């Protein structure tokens, strides 16, 4: 039984110099067999396990992770959460996640530091204006809060933006989703891990999957660096490495894995209290609670699993940042890193069964998976437990690439790729 985190537990532990806190999750050896195994211990995988246990009573399950939980893209993203996507299917999917975010800290008894500071998307040319206004209307028809701001209102909402008409790509306006914001990415992984562990889920770290054993058309288990583990249901949530797992069963996915970069500056006093994204010039920025500017760059145009990314991509992003925010010209960047994102041709995810019985994939989140973590876990758990999709993820099946019924969200993806 997990002790509840509260102001009282904080005071109580202060008396023992915070040296006697209970372990947040166990470090078990794998059992011989589980009812289901989730491959990938990032936010999405841990959330899937959490909701499998909580909503579907599947507690004899495991999450296997080749490194440390939350050490992949969960710890590498820019923590932006929003749901202002264009199409009905995406609006349903991402707003489902946003609604869970709004109560997540209470649900997990873990402060994920969800901060609804708003996300503003800028328009820099006439087509941007048309597209973003259209998206605003589409959002509102789907019950998602969105407003259009003209240039003066953009300046009022975020005064440090350079709205001068003589810059290379002038700000012609923008959209604002006030319910959007950020959360502490590590806390999301840790909170879900702690919650899942409390219900009996085994979280097995440093355990790499080497193969998937099949018997005809169904799965029998996984070969790992910690031996063979038997199971009838496998949920793959391996982000950039989804194709690596898929190739083990000769399944081809419509994915390309590319490095996506982000960087943070030295910490400074509060200067930007929202998230500002610009699709056209490819620069987005927010400020962490520590005071660092968190800046998202673009993807490299080629397949790579190196978790580095090219210098010219960062250079392009910083040029745009400096033009939009001249006040940042003397800021020093402290750290830069890359994460491997699995990109679908239509910039929408796949949460789907496959033609192999008992094998499910949750992948293709590309550059924007963090925001969907709770919703993705909830819907993927539903798909695995019932062997059929929830109505909110039915459109995100793998067969859409055969039927042609794509969910094209390149416009709302905010990272050009």
């Amino acid at each position, binding site marked *: 039984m997990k002790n509840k985190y509260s102001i009282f537990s904080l005071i109580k532990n202060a008396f023992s110099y915070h040296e006697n806190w209970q372990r947040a999750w166990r470090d078990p050896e794998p059992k011989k067999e589980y009812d289901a195994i989730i491959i990938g211990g990032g936010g999405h995988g841990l959330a899937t396990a959490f909701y499998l246990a909580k909503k579907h009573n599947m507690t004899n399950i495991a999450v296997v992770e080749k490194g440390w939980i939350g050490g992949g893209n969960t710890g590498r993203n820019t923590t932006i959460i929003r749901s202002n996507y264009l199409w009905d299917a995406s609006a349903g999917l991402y707003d489902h996640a946003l609604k869970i975010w709004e109560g997540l800290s209470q649900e997990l008894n873990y402060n994920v530091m969800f901060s609804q500071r708003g996300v503003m998307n800028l328009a820099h040319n006439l087509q941007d204006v048309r597209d973003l206004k259209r998206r605003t209307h589409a959002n509102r028809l789907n019950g998602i809060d969105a407003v259009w701001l003209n240039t003066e209102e953009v300046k009022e909402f975020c005064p440090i933006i350079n709205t001068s008409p003589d810059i290379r790509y002038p700000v012609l306006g923008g959209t604002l989703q006030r319910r959007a914001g950020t959360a502490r990415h590590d806390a999301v992984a840790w909170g879900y891990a702690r919650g899942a562990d409390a219900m009996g889920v085994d979280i097995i770290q440093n355990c790499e999957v080497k193969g998937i054993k099949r018997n005809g058309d169904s799965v029998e288990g996984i070969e790992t660096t910690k031996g063979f583990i038997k199971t009838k249901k496998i949920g793959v949530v391996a982000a950039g*490495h989804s194709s690596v797992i898929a190739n083990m069963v000769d399944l081809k996915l419509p994915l390309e894995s590319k490095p996506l970069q982000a960087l943070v500056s030295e910490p400074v006093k509060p200067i930007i209290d929202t998230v500002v994204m610009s699709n056209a010039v490819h620069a987005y920025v927010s400020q962490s609670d520590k005071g660092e500017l968190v800046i998202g760059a673009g993807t490299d145009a080629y397949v790579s699993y*190196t978790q580095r990314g090219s210098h010219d991509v960062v250079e392009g992003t910083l040029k745009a940042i400096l033009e939009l925010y001249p006040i940042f010209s003397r800021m020093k960047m402290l750290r830069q890193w890359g994460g491997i994102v699995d990109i679908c041709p239509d910039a929408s995810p796949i949460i789907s069964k496959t033609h192999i019985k008992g094998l499910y994939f949750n992948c293709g989140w590309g550059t924007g998976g963090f925001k969907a973590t709770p919703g993705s876990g909830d819907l993927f758990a539903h798909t695995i437990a019932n062997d059929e999709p929830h109505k909110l993820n039915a459109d995100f099946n793998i067969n859409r690439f055969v039927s042609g019924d794509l969910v094209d969200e390149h416009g709302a993806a905010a990272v050009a790729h």
Partner: protein
Amino acid sequence: MFLINCPYCGERDQSEFSAGGEAHILRPKQPTELSDDQWAEYLFMRKNIKGVQFERWNHAHGCRKWFNMIRDTSNDKIHAVYKMGEKPPLK
């Protein structure tokens, strides 16, 4: 970020090139005969290999010619570069 030895221009910075994805995917000879599954395979499905991959590149800010390259995607090491139509020097 790496250097690419363009078969026409020699060694140049990778930022001069644009990537064209997986190589040796043949254009269907009779598109009208294709089933939906075959179209999906041709248009969307990719091996996306972590390791040695065959791919197409274009020297976009140079000679603008297309060529093939064999590259290890796990460390960006380039094993070979060869012209379009040539047989891959590695299997």
